[in-house]
């Protein structure tokens, strides 16, 4: 018996030494490689079809469009060096740079944009984000299949370096649209030759600062510097995007030096890094709200809705979530044009109780059984429980809470919205139109059943208003209707980004659209 244990011991020691040996062949970080984690394999790198954050993170680094964002998230020239807008705001002419080439050396032309836009709208592409271009004349009809003729769409290459875009109505936010990846140019010959496989590394042709070198599915994506990039050459040689789904695993990899940035931090890790010089907290254009179904009792009475909103002390949310969330009563988030911190119903228990009394429920007596719904997620649950407690303490009403799996929840919201429900909204582009159009009467994302023609009119008027001051006034009025007069929703807070970045990463631009633009980053080995 003793012999067996002696053998086992020797085997153990040998394997230990072996472990040290095989681990030693891995070289430490090479210079100028930036490594970050992504939460899944990108569903697609086809920018007509991508809709998710992971794909966008990669596409934005291998492609560029007519315009790009500056540090204040305002559109500035990229492939288009300048543009003209007609007086009525319905026609845009983009003048393209003539020195832009694709990774295979072919010159980029305005026709590549025309093709990409029409492909996005083509019903056969079945692109989810086709609606981004619905402001373009004829776009919606073509996507709907009302006409089979792509030439009815108001986008046209006048020559190799001039792109004309006609809108169906003036849209003051329109310059944000060509900054979004679905409008990036595309090579007709490449897409048609390789069909569904055109985004594979051996086929894909791009024009951004980096190019796709290798795609190990669900494991790792390698981007390398694009030598043919038209603008200043990026400083990084390579980018490694590692697929790591589990947030805690990403923390392990960050702490063992295998990735350079942590972008999704579990609450405990945030606590741990809070006072660290490498920690970054930045507002994120994503609002979190509870909506009412205003057709359902007891919320068909605006006084009840007001009472519920007044009863909430918004300060509690960052306290429970601990991620630097910003409490708000208004809907357009800070960091975006049109943010009005004073709009919305603030914390006022006395007023809330009076309103509830006026509505026929003095001290909460006789308040009907009501359920608040949310989708199953830990943070949502904590907030729902907190709200339940707040309404009990301040209004003496008992609200039941119930959670549903995400897709079941969405179905319920679209078919029969519950009296009280949680939702969020992240900006597609940093303009108040994107946040407020959501609650117009015909919006597919308005689950409140609330319809207000005066609100609608304000939003549409603001969209065609080119004067910024006047626009801001219109949006303020609209927010007051939505949040103070009719109280269709109660905004609770705006989410924030929590990053930890290794000190050797320099030049990172953290922005409230959560875009990871890597062309200006470099690695400084000394720090």
């Amino acid at each position, binding site marked *: 018996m003793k012999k067996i244990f002696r053998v086992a011991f020797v085997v153990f020691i040998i394997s230990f030494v072996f472990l040290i040996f095989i681990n030693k062949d891995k070289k430490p970080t090479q210079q100028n490689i930036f490594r970050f984690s992504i939460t899944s394999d990108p569903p697609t790198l086809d920018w007509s079809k991508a809709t998710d954050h992971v794909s966008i993170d990669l596409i934005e680094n291998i492609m560029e469009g007519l315009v790009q964002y500056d540090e204040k998230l305002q559109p500035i020239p990229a492939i288009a060096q300048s543009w003209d807008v007609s007086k009525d705001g319905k026609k845009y002419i983009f003048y393209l740079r003539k020195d832009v080439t694709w990774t295979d050396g072919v010159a980029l032309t305005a026709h590549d944009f025309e093709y990409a836009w029409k492909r996005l709208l083509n*019903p056969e592409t079945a692109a989810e984000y086709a609606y981004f271009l619905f402001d373009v004349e004829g776009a919606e009809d073509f996507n709907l299949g009302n006409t089979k003729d792509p030439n009815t769409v108001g986008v046209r290459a006048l020559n190799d370096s001039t792109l004309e875009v006609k809108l169906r109505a003036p849209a003051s936010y329109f310059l944000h649209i060509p900054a979004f990846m679905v409008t990036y140019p595309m090579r007709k010959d490449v897409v048609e030759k390789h069909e569904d496989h055109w985004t594979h590394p051996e086929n894909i042709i791009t024009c951004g600062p980096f190019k796709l070198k290798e795609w190990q599915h669900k494991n790792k994506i390698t981007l390398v510097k694009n030598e043919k990039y038209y603008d200043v050459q990026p400083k990084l040689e390579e980018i490694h995007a590692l697929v790591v789904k589990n947030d805690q695993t990403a923390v392990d990899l960050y702490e063992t030096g295998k990735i350079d940035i942590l972008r999704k931090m579990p609450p405990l890790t945030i606590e741990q890094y809070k006072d660290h010089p490498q920690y970054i907290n930045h507002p994120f254009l994503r609002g979190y709200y509870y909506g009412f179904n205003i057709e359902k009792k007891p919320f068909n009475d605006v006084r009840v809705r007001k009472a519920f909103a007044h009863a909430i002390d918004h300060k509690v949310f960052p306290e429970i979530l601990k991620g630097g969330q910003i409490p708000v009563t208004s809907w357009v988030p800070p960091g975006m044009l049109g943010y009005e911190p004073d709009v919305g119903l603030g914390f006022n228990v006395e007023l809330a109780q009076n309103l509830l009394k006026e509505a026929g429920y003095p001290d909460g007596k006789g308040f009907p059984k009501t359920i608040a719904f949310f989708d199953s997620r830990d943070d949502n649950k904590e907030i729902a429980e907190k709200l339940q407690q707040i309404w009990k303490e301040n209004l003496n009403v008992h609200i039941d809470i119930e959670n549903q799996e995400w897709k079941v929840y969405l179905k319920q919201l679209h078919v029969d919205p519950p009296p009280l429900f949680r939702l969020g909204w992240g900006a597609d582009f940093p303009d108040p139109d994107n946040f407020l159009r959501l609650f117009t009467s015909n919006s597919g994302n308005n689950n409140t059943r609330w319809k207000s023609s005066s609100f609608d009119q304000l939003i549409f008027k603001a969209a065609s208003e080119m004067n910024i001051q006047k626009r801001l006034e219109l949006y303020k009025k609209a927010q007051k209707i939505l949040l103070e007069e009719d109280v269709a929703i109660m905004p609770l807070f705006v989410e924030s980004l929590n990053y930890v970045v290794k000190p050797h990463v320099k030049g990172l631009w953290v922005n409230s659209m959560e875009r990871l633009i890597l062309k200006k980053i470099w690695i400084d080995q000394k720090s």
Partner: protein
Amino acid sequence: MVQFVIKRLFLGIVVLWVLITLTFFILRFLPGGPFDSDKKLPPQVLQNLQKKYRLDLSLEKQYFFYLKDLVFHFDLGPSFKNPDRSINEMIAVSFPISLQLGMCALLIAFLVGIPLGLLAAYHHNTKWDHIFMICAISGVSLPAFLSGSILILIFSKFLSLLPAARWDGLSYMILPALTLGLRPAAIIARLMRGSALEVMDSDYIRTARAKGLSESQVVYKHVLKNSVLPVLTLAGPLSASIITGSFIVELIFAIPGMADYFVDAVFNRDYTLIMGATIVYAFFLISANILVDVLYRFIDSRMQVT
């Protein structure tokens, strides 16, 4: 024998067909679809998508087309969430990784489990027996996310010996294979001990000893060979489940295998991906069971071929 194998194969195909049919219809009755998201699609965009994926057809027609593609072309269809890839491609990439990981784990399970169980039985009711069985019981009861995290903490964070996660070479395999193999190793050890104890009590072992065989001959020739049968029974389903991957282990070690297809695909309502993953899993489970039944007959001649 041949007749037996054919019969089992036929039964396997029937089981597979029933499973495909059930999965197909149960999935469609789940509320919510692949294209529901927090940003609701305009109706015409949704229509375009449904047309592309044949979701606009009646349910029976969809089922018929699916079965037709599967049987005649081995085509598991396109993925709803990954528009550029087919399910065949996705499984072809991820399955070998899960297989590799599973094989390593299985090897660990057998190499550790069988000797441990045998030793415990041999030293029945001594301190070794107790130590081994405490290890085995902890192994069975420790969930993978805990044992995995402990291993990462020790070997990656404190000792910096092994990578904490990912799949990039030999050294990356050790921790996940260990985590995945621990539980089956413990199960096997317990089963082995029980069965070896029973065998050691039997008359033919006493006879073997009586005729003067050495202890090692008794243990290896008689005890081991006769007590390994129940372990073999377990081996079929065990290998199928280990090889198609363990969701938790692949998740915490960020391994690009196929285990998460079962979970994520359901959340995403990626119908074809759930179907594909289920079919592959079922195929392996059924094949492993048939294989074990056949192996039985080689190992134990007492078994009747029925």
